């Protein structure tokens, strides 16, 4: 499947609807969501805005490097280092970054300095950093020097405008939660007018690729999320009345299924999830999924297998290839939507299913550096 090489207009995005109940595929448009969903359903979006998370800097030996913020940590941020070059090279073709022992100060564009406070056992390139400033001056520096994370299949540098959804609020995503980008307010208000709830959560989406095989195999890294009480109420209402809970993007699946894992029922609040989704995972909250176009081999494709069996997924891929659907963050959408009777009942009392691990953290998603 061809990646979309630029930030396409929302109206140009296509929607492939997959019905696992009947095995049918349909070529539609995202505007059709208004009629595809039914009153009582709830659509859950990730309202994290996208931070310009790519920063250029210099290693101790004077060699150029790139630092991509990947997550919020206890002391500052998690970041992944890249060697010389930029997004124009494929990540796997980039030279390795300089070695940065704990205590190294990394000068970045705009005068910002990152200090290495921890190195991950996963990869020498994954480091925890603190910055030399906090509060308004830190964010001014990040927004002044940072660029959106992007990859070699893009044709031109991306503007910060291009990597935002229509509803993004706090800048906690390091890459755009892209399944929601094609959603217009005409669609969202249309859904609400039809009796479909549009609910939100915040999930700090991390990097989708680093070019480091060991690190890529571990993606997605643990990510923080926050689920408001009104979203839990919306979801409970939909599930108990047998309506759909449609996740917009894999980050929403991860937040909701991560939050309910190990619990009798979904609860509001903040946490961190290292849930990894794939074949055999049985979602307890999410019944249906709006996501991008994914190809075999991607972690997102594995996640799709939690919703669609392998045979039907094979037909989806063949059809998408033949019909010229585009992949990646500015590509087209897949909607997995069951027709007819709702799928699995919301079994609030059931025991936790397999393939999840998670831990709760105190406090909220607000960055620890934001308040000082």
């Amino acid at each position, binding site marked *: 499947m061809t990646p979309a090489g630029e930030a396409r207009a929302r109206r140009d995005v296509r929607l492939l609807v997959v019905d696992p109940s009947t095995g049918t595929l349909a070529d539609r448009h995202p505007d059709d969501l208004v009629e595809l969903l039914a009153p009582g359903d709830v659509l859950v*979006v990730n*309202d994290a*805005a996208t*931070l310009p998370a790519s920063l250029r800097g210099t290693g101790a030996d004077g060699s150029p490097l790139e630092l991509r913020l990947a997550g919020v940590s206890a002391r500052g941020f998690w970041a992944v280092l890249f060697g010389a070059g930029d997004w124009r090279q494929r990540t796997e073709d980039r030279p390795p970054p300089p070695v940065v022992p704990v205590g190294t100060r990394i000068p970045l564009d705009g005068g910002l300095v990152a200090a290495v406070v921890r190195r991950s056992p996963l990869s020498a390139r994954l480091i925890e950093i603190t910055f030399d400033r906090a*509060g*308004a001056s830190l*964010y*001014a520096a990040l*927004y*002044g020097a940072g660029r959106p994370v992007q990859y070699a299949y893009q044709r031109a540098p991306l*503007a*910060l*405008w291009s990597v*935002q*959804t*229509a*509803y*993004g*609020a*706090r*800048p906690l995503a390091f890459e755009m939660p892209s399944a929601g980008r094609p959603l217009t*307010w005409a669609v*969202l*208000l249309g859904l609400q007018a039809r009796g479909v709830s*549009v609910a*939100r959560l915040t999930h700090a989406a991390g990097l989708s690729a680093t070019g480091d095989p060991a690190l890529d195999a571990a993606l997605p890294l643990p990510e923080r999320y926050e689920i408001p009480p*009104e979203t839990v109420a919306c979801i409970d209402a939909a599930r108990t009345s047998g309506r759909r809970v449609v996740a917009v993007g894999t980050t929403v699946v991860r937040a909701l299924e991560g939050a309910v894992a190990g619990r009798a029922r979904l609860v509001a609040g903040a946490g961190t999830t290292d849930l990894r989704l794939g074949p055999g995972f049985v979602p307890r909250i999410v019944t249906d999924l709006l996501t991008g176009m994914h190809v075999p081999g991607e972690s997102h494709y594995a996640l799709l297998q939690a919703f669609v069996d392998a045979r039907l997924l094979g037909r989806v891929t063949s059809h998408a290839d033949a019909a010229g659907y585009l992949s990646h963050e500015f590509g087209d959408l897949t909607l997995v939507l069951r027709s007819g009777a709702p799928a699995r009942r919301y079994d609030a009392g059931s025991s936790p299913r397999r393939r999840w691990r998670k831990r709760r953290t105190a406090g909220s998603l*607000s*960055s620890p550096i*934001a308040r000082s």
Partner: protein
Amino acid sequence: MNTSPRTALITGGSRGLGRAIGRVLAARGTRVVLVARGTTDLDAAVAEIRSAGGEAHGIVADVGAKEAIYPIAGEAAALVGEIELLVHDASDLGPTPLRLLLDTECEDFARVLEVNLLGPFRLTKALAGPMVLARRGTVVLISSDAAVESYPRWGAYGVSKAALDHLGRIWAAELAETGVRFVTIDPGEMDTRMHADAMPEADRTTLAAPMDVAARVVDIIAAPGVVASGARIVADAWTAARAAPPPAEVSP
């Protein structure tokens, strides 16, 4: 009832009315983010609020620049959380002394529209979406009687404010029933640097103090159910009418 917003973003927040609105809100417990082009006045405005025990942050940015919008929105939300109140106070008069339309350079006219009209459009576009999802939020557009009256030499400014008024009305219509309110306020003539730039000959003793007007503006904002979305309020008249029963078209 105290319905002060928890967070507010105020453009034009380093001087005049914007700075005063920031002070009044912060004194009522709102976490305030001020946006202005100049660092010196902005730092002073932030320090003034903090020394009074309030929370304030400053963002140096030009609201007339499209590429400044997501940095403003993102930095503000990172600093104080979701923005519940957005006040569009930043304004550009164009070159002073004010001149006739026939003498106005095209670029100067365009610049006034960038700051006074396109800036508020773009920043609202970035911030009102999250407000709709949250089902709460208020957007205040600071207007002028120049939006209504045809004052000679106030062409670019007056046109920008007339369009800003209509922007607020249409936004209110499109987002009716979403919980997000749009309120346009004509603050009246105040003793500010902008007023002095526009009308240096004015008798300053006849002009209102920005802090007095700011208190009125914040009262208007904090009165949900009294001010309907899409309303255009003349601050002086509203204050006078406060004691009177609410007008008929207002829902409780």
